[in-house]
């Protein structure tokens, strides 16, 4: 298998990571060597194997949905990069 530059551009779009030409070429070469290594899995026939989604063999527990932290809005907003007061500010979305 070979990952070409067009595929890299597509993945970078899906990943929301911008790449320029130089970076795309480096990524293509890295990803190709990693996927060559991953291809080894195709040696195995897994048609009759159930996928393992979690090693913790327990059912998820339910708990009451309660408010435990009050009045922390200001502290949380403080971590955002813009000088926000009551909301998270993002670039204009609707014209």
């Amino acid at each position, binding site marked *: 298998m070979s*990952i070409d530059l067009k*595929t*890299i551009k597509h*993945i*970078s779009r*899906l*990943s*929301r*990571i*911008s*790449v320029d030409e130089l970076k795309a070429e480096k*990524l293509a070469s*890295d*990803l190709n*060597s*990693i996927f060559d*290594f*991953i*291809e*080894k*899995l*195709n*040696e*195995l026939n*897994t048609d009759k*194997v*159930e*996928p*393992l*989604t*979690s*090693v*913790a063999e*327990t059912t*998820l*527990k339910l*708990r009451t949905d309660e408010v435990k*932290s009050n009045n*922390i809005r200001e*502290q*949380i907003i*403080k*971590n*955002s*990069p*813009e000088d926000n007061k009551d909301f*998270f500010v*993002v*670039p*204009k*979305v609707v014209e």
Partner: protein
Amino acid sequence: MSDITSQSLTSLVKNIKEKKLSSEDVTKAFVIRSEKSNELNSYISEDFSNALNKAIKFDEKPNLDLKLPGIPMAVKDLFCTKNTRTTAGSKILEYFVPTYESTVTQNLWDEGAILLGKLNCDEFAMGSSNETSFYGNVQNPVDKGLVPGGSSGGSAAAVSGQLTPITIGTDTGGSIRQPASFTGTVGLKPTYGSCSRYGIVAFASSLDQAGPMAQNVEDCALLLEVISSYDIKDSTSIDFKRNQYSKELTKNIKGKKIGIPKEYRVDGMPKEIEELWQKGIDYAKDCGAEIVDISLPHTSYALPTYYIVAPAEASSNLARYDGVKYGFRARGENLIDMYEKTRSEGFGAEVQRRIMIGTYVLSSGYYDAYYLKAQKVRKLIKNDFDEAYKKVDAILTPSTPSSAFKIGEKKGDPVSMYLNDIFTVPVNLAGLPAISIPAGHDVAGYPLGLQIIGKAFKEQEILNFAYAMEDKINFKRKIKDWWIK
């Protein structure tokens, strides 16, 4: 009294309880040594003056019933600490100050421990050499220019260099055990579900576990006892009866069956690793254990499986870093452009690589071929262990395929870097507990480790085994304090 910073945790606790040392004495000693150790670059954030104040406050009204009474310690910068910056080794979280505390660190403070600072690690715990950290690489105290391993590299270096008596790390594919092995220290990855993941910056949620790192097995047992707890805030936390690991620790492993998996004898394994393993087998026999040859037939598929599962989960976990709610934001022409530039400038090369692998294997048309396939092989790997554990109580292997390498040596070649985790990754895929203990030195005098893998929830068993082996091995750390200013 011997030098404070060279004492084990157990001995410090004893001295504080017997009032031979105060928390201030101990904290001051570690702060002074840490301040002289900038060249190791172990810390990302220091919290020394707060630590000293807390120690003085502890001494005013000491509660000596606690398990870590006034013990200062630094922790990996992947654990959220309330009101103390938490970066995960990334530029994107450079100014992130959590509004909450991780359960594992809360458990430490509840038992009397005092935070010294936050320790360097690979960015988002993705790396095996601590070279992917935005805050620079860490020097291994063993020798200048040597990596400490990763991702808990700052943690391992800090324990090995005696900047902290103990620490906690996280282990997704070997990130506690490999650096412990590279620095001549002890590191344990608990069973998945044993330590809460609440408040730990997430990498690969089905693999991540927090665990103790220490100078010896006894300290490791005590620390595990403190951090392991059932937690309602982590939906994968498991409610099982936890042992009093340090109190129940015994060197009696007579009649225990130890498995030796033939598949771990990999091609091109250095002779000294082979010899170390053989030495380990002999020590186990000396301790009265019975050696059993076993087979884990899918071992060679573990790394390829890991490099699908871990990046897939990471790509999803790291989607939250979009320049809106946390720290770093790059300017963009519109919202999408802002996201893309923020992530391109905020994440380092290895993190970007893994997000892109993960996005690709989960993308339309490739999901079945890669992600589903990997989950199926993961099942086969777990089945291998289940079969083996019908015959044995624990499994003995080398921790790593080599000793610590030079800074820069493997940086350009991701696959060669990934091969470092060949012996540790299968354990995470199967959710098992495992410990790495120092067991010898290579020709250059660099430490080498042995790994003991246990059945799920049998941490006590591997600790006992390690405790018995440690006694026979009688490992001496050869550290010359070359970095002290």
